[in-house]
């Protein structure tokens, strides 16, 4: 089934690339969204859920959960992009959408891949599509960001490949399916396993936007048009998270699992540290939101590191972060249309310029900071509870201190946007409140999850986190 859909998505992307008018691009995008809807229906109502498609893809619980999130977010991103890029030349316009559709397709593949090599191949494919999107503006800055993105991602992915080879050597059964590797790893050489995990984690960190290769995600979000940055910061980050999570699960029954968890803890704390410090330092709202992603993925890594209920919390955190962060990036896209820039020290008075957008930003701020009724409050509370239960006081103190810095930085800078006097030129004719409302609807979804977690979602996460 999935190959048929891949073929359709590729044809639609090709059709978009050769479109001669904006109308054709819009029709192609509409068709693309419709095929994803059809895919969802076939997946859940057509009996394909939990089945294997072809040799390399399985519609398992984790893949299905993240795919639903991707389908929702990418629909918003496509619709917002239409408005965001309305003044672009048709050549750039169609290339952007073609690459965006390809990126979504590649991410879908990453979610459902049941083979470690296929996951790796598709993650590398996202680098190719992402690079094209980054270079959309054709400026010196975007060229620099694209060059760095290609260079660092390729090097990172090459390092991850070395790790995969080591892992396969440790499993020594010739198969690259996650299930087969898992059964063979229990007796693997601990030194191989440790080296393999470190290499894979380092390589994939460029996609999940965690320490050490987080910088490239920041540059990517900075260079990409804001709606696409929303997809990169959620859909693509989730792909990195899932790739690491699948490898993490492979290690669950090995002798080195405790060591793996310690590595995740260190990486998580370092990511949180980087996020907290740079949230204060940057002067660009897109980079600012990207550092918030680093911080949140750091929290998810800490959840995986402490284990127990922390794993559940980590997954729930990533799910809810998807709605919140995509909403905030879409709000930032509206801000860009009004101010024609992202400079933190110059933009202001947003509450009087676009009240709906400002409310979206403030509510987004409250939810991303994990204040109740934010769903992130639940996940962070669970993680902290697990830390206290385990008696890791140093971790609890470090995490709390860093979260305090995060809270101060985010509040200070987003409140400035709404209330400080504006110093930049305004383009008030570009205010589109429908887009602000639309972005808020994603936040509402997140807040609903804060109040009420549906039983099927809980059961789904329970199944996914079972090691």
């Amino acid at each position, binding site marked *: 089934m999935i190959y048929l859909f891949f073929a359709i998505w590729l044809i639609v992307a090709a059709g978009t690339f050769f479109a001669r008018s904006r109308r054709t691009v819009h029709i192609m995008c509409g068709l693309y969204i419709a095929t994803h809807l059809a895919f969802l229906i076939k997946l859940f109502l057509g009996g394909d859920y939990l089945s294997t498609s072809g040799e390399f893809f399985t519609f398992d619980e984790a893949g299905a959960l993240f795919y639903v999130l991707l389908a929702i977010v990418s629909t918003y991103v496509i619709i917002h992009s239409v408005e965001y890029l309305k003044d672009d030349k048709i050549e750039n316009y169609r290339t952007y959408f073609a690459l965006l559709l390809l990126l979504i397709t590649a991410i879908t593949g990453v979610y459902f891949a049941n083979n470690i*090599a296929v996951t*790796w*191949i598709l993650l*590398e*494919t996202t*680098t*190719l599509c992402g*690079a094209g999107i980054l*270079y959309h503006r054709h400026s*010196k*800055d975007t*060229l*620099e*960001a*694209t*060059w*760095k993105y*290609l*260079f660092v991602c*390729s*090097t990172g992915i*090459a*390092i991850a*490949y*070395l790790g*995969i*080879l*080591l892992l*396969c*050597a*440790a499993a*020594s059964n*010739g198969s*690259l399916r996650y299930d087969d590797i898992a059964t063979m790893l229990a007796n693997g*050489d601990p*030194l*191989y396993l440790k*080296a393999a995990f470190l290499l894979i984690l380092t390589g994939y960190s460029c996609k999940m936007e965690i320490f050490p290769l987080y910088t490239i995600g920041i*540059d990517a979000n*900075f*260079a990409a048009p804001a709606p696409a940055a929303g997809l990169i910061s959620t859909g693509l980050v989730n792909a990195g998270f899932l790739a690491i999570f699948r490898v993490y699960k492979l290690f669950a029954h090995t002798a080195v699992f405790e060591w793996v968890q310690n590595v995740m803890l260190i990486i998580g704390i370092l990511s949180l540290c980087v996020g907290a410090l*740079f949230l204060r*330092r*940057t*002067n*660009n709202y897109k*980079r600012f939101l990207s550092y918030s992603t680093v911080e949140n993925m750091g929290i998810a890594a800490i959840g995986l590191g402490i284990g127990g209920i922390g794993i559940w919390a980590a997954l729930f955190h990533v799910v809810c972060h998807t709605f919140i962060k995509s909403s905030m990036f879409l709000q930032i896209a509206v801000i860009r249309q009004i101010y024609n820039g992202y400079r933190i020290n110059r933009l202001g008075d947003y509450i009087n310029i676009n009240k709906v957008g400002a409310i979206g930003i403030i509510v987004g701020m409250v939810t991303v900071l994990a204040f109740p009724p934010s769903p992130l409050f639940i996940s962070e509370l669970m993680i902290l509870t697990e830390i206290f239960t385990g008696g890791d006081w140093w971790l609890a103190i470090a995490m709390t201190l860093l979260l305090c810095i995060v809270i101060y930085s985010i509040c200070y800078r987003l409140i400035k946007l709404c209330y400080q006097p504006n110093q930049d030129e305004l383009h008030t004719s570009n205010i589109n409140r429908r887009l602000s409302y639309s972005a808020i609807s994603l936040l509402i979804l997140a807040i609903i999850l804060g109040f009420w977690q549906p039983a099927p979602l809980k059961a789904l996460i329970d199944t996914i986190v079972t090691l």
Partner: protein
Amino acid sequence: MLLALIILYVITLINLALVERFRKYASIITIQGWLLLGIALLRLHSLDWLELSFIVLETLIFKAIIVPHILMSVIKKTKINRVKTSGTSQFNALILSFVALIVSAITTYLVADSSIHMLFFGVAMYALLSGLILIVLRSRIFTHMVGFLIIENGVFLFSMAIGVEMPMLINAAIMLDILMSVLMLSLFMTKVDDKIHTDDSDSLTHVKD
């Protein structure tokens, strides 16, 4: 024969620390391409002929011919011939390269067992470290590109160590490796130099906080 080719490969990596001219870098990449071709032929001869010819042809066409050709074109186009004189000296680079060689040898000794071809692992690790050293020590973007190609070649070499049982891995790696290398080289040739007029990675520091 296989051992001889691998020793030659190690010599090219040591030589990497000694050269400063870009043409020499391009020559090293060319030689490595041909050595990898030889290693692939000897190491993977038991594969199905279709898979073997796919790997061999790709290695020959891209690693031994096209990538070196693009590198030479970049040198001609940018008219930059050597690394910056203000950078790290050859002596220091050589010392670092030897340290990397010793670290690789010790690590290989520690992790070696029957499931991984020891020599391949050690050389691949040395290639990885050599590439990283090159990227860190030299400031010109061209040398960074060469560093990336050295890393890719090292990973390719390692994939051959366990690739006899898993040819799909090798195919996938080559395909993407080539695609990325060609894309990056093309981007360098057509965009970076034209737009930024840079020969120095210090010029690529505008995107930051």
